[in-house]
């Protein structure tokens, strides 16, 4: 009788511990619209697959150049804040620019997914829904900017691309300080097709 009782208690304790372990091993999930701080190891997940339509290789022409950009959704570890790493589903982008003769001007398509020069940040919804990505180019004196992309048709086959340069002040230590024009690999405004 005593042994049976003991076995029952043991069983309950085991179940409780297992449940605890399962609960604690699962990171807390937050929707993609979360822009506030999240706990360490939390996961801001694209629960509604909102990012999927942006995936693929997009192409457009500008200034006698051809621009290719490949977008892909990845689960990225964001550890830029001390002691507060977390995961987020983001679109990352790799691009290639060819001149009118087909020569490669810029190509970073071989970068690893977690080390791209373009990384998604969030959606804006007013006045229209658009996804914003951050551009940061260590090869051009840490040139930077915000990229805004939005679909222009219901079939999600054309994409409006706008680029806002946020590089700001350039000082003489930049190797392109005297370049005219300053290297600008990304188009400012373009329509891309899949």
């Amino acid at each position, binding site marked *: 009788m005593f042994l049976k009782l003991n076995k029952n208690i043991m069983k309950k304790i085991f179940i409780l511990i297992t449940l605890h372990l399962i609960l604690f091993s699962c990171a807390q999930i937050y929707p993609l619209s979360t*822009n*506030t701080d999240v706990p360490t190891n939390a996961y801001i997940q694209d629960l509604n697959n909102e990012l999927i339509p942006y995936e693929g290789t997009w192409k457009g022409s500008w200034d006698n150049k051809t621009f290719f950009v490949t977008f892909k959704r990845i689960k990225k570890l*964001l550890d*830029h*804040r*001390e002691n507060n790493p977390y995961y987020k589903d983001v679109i990352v982008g790799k691009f290639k620019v060819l001149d009118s003769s087909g020569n490669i001007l810029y190509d970073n398509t071989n970068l690893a997914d977690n080390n791209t020069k373009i990384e998604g*940040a*969030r959606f*804006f*919804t*007013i*006045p229209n829904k658009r996804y*914003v990505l*951050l551009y*940061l180019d*260590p090869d051009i*004196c*840490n040139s*930077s900017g*915000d990229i*805004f992309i939005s679909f222009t048709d219901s079939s999600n086959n054309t994409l409006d691309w*706008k*680029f*806002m*340069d*946020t*590089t*700001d*002040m*350039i*000082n*003489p*230590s930049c190797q392109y*300080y005297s*370049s*005219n*024009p*300053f290297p*600008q690999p990304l188009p*400012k*405004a373009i329509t891309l097709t899949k």
Partner: protein
Amino acid sequence: MLMKRKIHLTRLLLVIVTLLSMSSCVRDELAAESQPQVISTNMSAKFASRSFWKEDNIYINKVQQVFLKVANLEHVRTRYGELNWDYAMTFGNFNETYALVPIIKDNKAVLLMEAVRIGNKLFLYEKNDEEMIAFFNAAMYGKIIHYDETLSGNNGTLSKALNYVCSTRTLSVGCDGEPGCVPYVKTETVCGFQQGGTPPKGFDPSGDPDLGSGGGGDDGYEYPDPPDEIKDPCEKIKSKFTTDLKFKSKVAAIDKQEVFAYDHEMGFAAGYPPANTTVTETQYQPMENMAGSHNVSLPDGDQYFGYMHSHNNFSDGGIPVKIFSPADLATFLTSCVANADAHGSIDDAYGMVITSAGNYVLQYTGATSGFGVGPNTIKYWKAWYGRQFKAIQNDDGGYDQDDVEKVFLRFLKEKVQIDGVELYKVDKTTGKSSKLNLNSNNVVVPIPCS
């Protein structure tokens, strides 16, 4: 066996003798230190510090010189007593600003003379603080068995007295075996001289009514060779807006709605006058736009110690952040501060951003300019900055300026982590500035400059 024991005993004796001799050395030193000192009765004798602590001897020496120049010693003796310069204390101040000098009558301190330098003027005040006088008596006549000092800086309001130091000094007074004696501890904290409030009673060294009392509301005495003043950032900003007409006109040229509506930034860099010329004014150069971009560049040359530039309202479909960018901060540190340090005074350096949502100034109060801010650092700064500023944007891409200030201060605190980089906001109408700080709850606290 016997031989071995002998060696052991000899070694033991040697250790004991060494320990005893060491202990007697310590005692001799303490005894010599704590014996009542011979108190100087000649206030015109050359001063030689007998304080337990390090004092600003240059200042005490100069104060004594000024005092002897103006004092009628007979008057001082009769009215106050004998000044004991050897026990003058500056309580952690080493910028020739503050000292307390005990005044002796009948072998005890009865009053203190407070010597305060402001600019090139020396003011003398009476300090009749019972506890403080008792502290000086303990220092001069007590059997001191221990002494200590804790220094701390001010971190309160921003005023001209920005760099004052608080010193807490402790004396443990023991007994020499006299019956009924109880050891005691005396602690006093002095934070230099605080301006404002009711002026203290002037100390009158001359006794001449025509010359005034020497302190209080009077003009003070000429102080020889005052050290160069390090102006606090508030003073630096204020003087630019009040005395530098060129600076003001350049700010006015940028601070316009039409400039904020441009598709590119606009700015000026401030440079030291060229060497070996008669030019003495700050030289302002336009900051050119990088060809084909909306960015500005700092002109080439190591004379540029400051800059001012605009951040636009809109740019290519986006809304720029209306405060310094990581590149602005990097330029301020690696060019302006470095150039100021090399060719002028490090505290000349400044950066300014002029926007429709507010004008901001970066100042640096540190002493050195080697920051090690290279491309990798800027990359990580930009990654942090980009992500964090995206998070505070509203759904239309706009910002609340309160959030912008807060995230930028967090950027300085959490990511940049360079002591001495300070952010000021300048009122567009009044030109008055406030230092923006983050409190422990990450709330922005403006501290108005005086």
